[in-house]
Structure formats: C-alpha cells, structure tokens
C-alpha cells in the first residue's frame, strides 16, 4: 500500500543530511513551508545548499535556518527585501555563498532537472553581468546562454491539499515554485494544510501528481510568516 503520510514534520525531514541540496518553495511567505523549515532548524544539519527564490525575512523560516548557520550556499533570484536582515549580514561578512539567478532561469533550471533535461538555452542575462562564465550560442540570429539543470536531494514544499498518494493542489499564488521543486528533488517532502482521502481530489485538478512526492505531513494551521516577522519572533523560540 502506498502511504506517504508522515506523522510529524520532524519525521518528515528526518532523512535530510549534512551537505544536502534542499529546494524550498515559496515566493516570500506565500508557499513557504515554515514548519518544515523549523523542523530542519531543530534537526541542525549543516552545509546545506538551499535553492529558493528569496533568502528569508526576519528571524523565522528560511532566515532562521540561515541564522543557525546551516546554509553554506543559497541559489536564488532575490535575496534582498526590506525585512531581510540575516542573509545580508552573513553575505557581507563573506560567510554565506550566493548564486544569483534570474527568476525565470531559476524556474526553468529547476523544471529541467525534473524533466531530465540537463541543459537548455535561454536569452535571459545575455549582455548583462550575469552572462559571465556562461557559454553563448546563436540560434536564428539571436544570442542565448547555456543554462544547466539544478538537481536537489530534497524539496520542502507547502500545499493546500494532499492525499496519501502524494497528489497535491495548491492555494492561489502560493503555488509558485512548489510543483517544479517537487519534480526536481529526489525526495520531496510536503506540508499540506489538509490531508484528504484518495479520490477526493478530482484527477483533472491535480497540480502535482503523487509520483513527484515522497512524504506528506499535515500542518492544519501553518504560521503566518509576516505576522511572526512583525512580532519580531525568532526561531527557535
């Protein structure tokens, strides 16, 4: 029998190891699997490479993971926000590595890993400083750069509903990087607001088919990251 349901966030992240590459869904707080990230903070594994669009806010979620010195390198498109304090400080001190990737290239590199495409060409970043070190090539009289897939050992993803097969649906713009990170990681770990029975999700409406998911844990009342930041909360609390 297929049963991907884990009993706790700690059980769900138990396999994550030192030095792993971990994708984390979310666009800012929307879709950020904050409870899974906090379980990872509790676990304390180190030298992680994190792939995520942003670099966290305040002192909770991804920012807490970084502040806890568990992240060696971050691959992201936008590490700068008004309430991002942890990453900038470590970055300026040279204590965390940054690979800055245009957002669409980041998304496509993630999707490519999931789709078995090792590399592709894109026009994004041509004639800018971010083309540096990349192979260039012309197709139909336009210049493109070669970009490589980003593979991950784990993905931490937040969704709205899941079943024991790992079929997922998302909520509004919290979908963002979730579906493609599920595809790209060897082990995808999902926190769902609600776990439903197999058959409750219409096959036409499934966004992430269960084949891309290894573990699901129900987190019925996920924390609201922006409220925690507003309240100046710190994790671990």
């Amino acid at each position, binding site marked *: *029998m297929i049963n991907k349901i884990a009993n706790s966030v700690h059980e769900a992240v138990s396999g994550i190891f030192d030095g792993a590459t971990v994708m984390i869904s979310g666009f800012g707080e929307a879709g950020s699997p904050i409870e899974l990230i906090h379980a990872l903070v509790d676990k304390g594994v180190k030298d992680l490479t994190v792939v995520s669009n942003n670099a966290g806010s305040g002192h909770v979620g991804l920012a807490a993971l970084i502040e806890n010195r568990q992240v060696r390198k971050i691959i992201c498109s936008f590490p700068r926000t008004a309430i991002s304090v942890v990453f900038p400080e470590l970055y300026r001190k040279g204590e965390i590595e940054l690979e800055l990737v245009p957002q669409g290239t980041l998304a496509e590199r993630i999707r490519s890993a999931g789709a078995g495409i090792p590399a592709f060409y894109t026009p994004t970043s041509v004639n800018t400083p971010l083309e540096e070190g990349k192979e260039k090539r012309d197709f139909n009289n336009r210049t493109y750069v070669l970009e490589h897939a980003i593979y991950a050992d784990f993905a931490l993803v937040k969704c709205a509903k899941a*079943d024991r097969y790992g079929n997922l649906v998302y909520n509004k713009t919290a979908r963002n990087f979730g579906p493609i990170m599920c595809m790209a990681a060897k082990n995808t770990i999902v926190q769902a607001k609600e776990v439903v029975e197999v058959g409750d999700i219409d096959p036409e409406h499934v966004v992430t088919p269960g084949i891309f998911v290894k573990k699901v844990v129900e987190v019925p009342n996920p924390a609201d990251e922006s409220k925690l930041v507003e309240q100046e909360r710190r994790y671990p609390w």
Partner: protein
Amino acid sequence: MVAKENITGWSVQEIAEKVANDIFDGAYVNLGIGLPELVAGRIQDGKEVIFHTENGLLGMGKPAEPGKEDPELVNAGKKYVTAIPGAAYFHHADSFAMIRGGHIDICVLGAYQVSEEGDLANWSSGNPDDIPAVGGAMDLVAGVDTIFVITKFFTKSGKPKILKQCTYPLTGKNVVKTIYTDMAIIDVENKKLKVRELAPGVEFDFLQQNTDAKLYM
C-alpha cells in the same frame, strides 16, 4: 536435442505473472503496448502499483467495460481504459517529464530483439517499405532505470529474439534489465545474460543452442 515444437514453456499469462512478481509495492510503472498490457491484470493482491500511460494519465485502471468506453480516456495503445481514484491527468510535456526525469520506476516493453548487452530493438524492422513509427519507446528506455522486456523467446518464424547483436535499428543501448520470455527469465548483469529461471521442460543447453548470444547460468 529437443525440437522447439515440443517445448511449450510458460503461457503469456504466466510470463506476465513473473513480471508482476518483480514489481514492488508502490511502484510507478509504465506498460508498453501488447504483451506488457497483460501485466496490469497479474499484480498480486495487497500490492498497490500505479500505472502511468504516456498520453497523460497516472493511475490508469482496468480496461473500460463494453458500453462504457470513453473515446477521450485511452491508453498509449489507444485502447479504452479507466482511471482509478487518486488518478491525475496532465499534458504530454509533463507526462514525458515523468519519463525522461527518471520518476517512473519500471517500464515493461515488448521487443523485436534484445542483444547480449541489453540493447533493445522494438520500433522498426529496418525494412524500407515499413512506415517508421517510434512513439514513446525511445523516451522510455532513455528515462526509466528499470526496463523489463516481455516477449516470446522465438519469433513467429522460429528465429531467436535474443541475439549477440541486434540486427534491427536500436531503441536504446544497454537499457534492458530483465527479459521475461516463455522459455526463461534472463537478467542482463554487467552486459552479460544470466538465466535466472527456466520454464518447466526447458534446458539451459536448449536455450544456448538457439541463440548466438552467450548465456550464463
């Protein structure tokens, strides 16, 4: 030496059962057209296996009952099928992302020929008069780690399908893991053919005499 005609070996249902035995609980499996389709019906009770069909369905169920066929619910062989509870539909690029991206655990395919080193030929006879048609076969062998072949040992004209070298155009090189035939189950291990199990009444020497591929016991 035993004449081929006197050896019956396993029935196709028995071969399908042998394949089903090697499919683990929870596996995501793609079944090719023809003999491979029999495998779905032989999965042991208690095992939950999810069938993928590359035309956009994960969680393919049984064939549609007569009178309940839906022309918009078909499998890769364009046969009318059903979907299980917990199924998902998706488009072709997503479907082949599952295949090419290594997400399908096992694929069961038919074969024209399999070589000593696990090369597979199952898409073209190489006859210039035939209409070439490849479908998803090359994507499947390139993307799925475990490729099982289910086939009769001999062609209809009595020629072996397991050969030192394939003479037909390849679908993929070094891709087959196990060959399930009516005569024997043969694993491809480090580019060598190891006979794992012989059908009742089939002797190793008989098999070896009927193929130029080197077999190991």
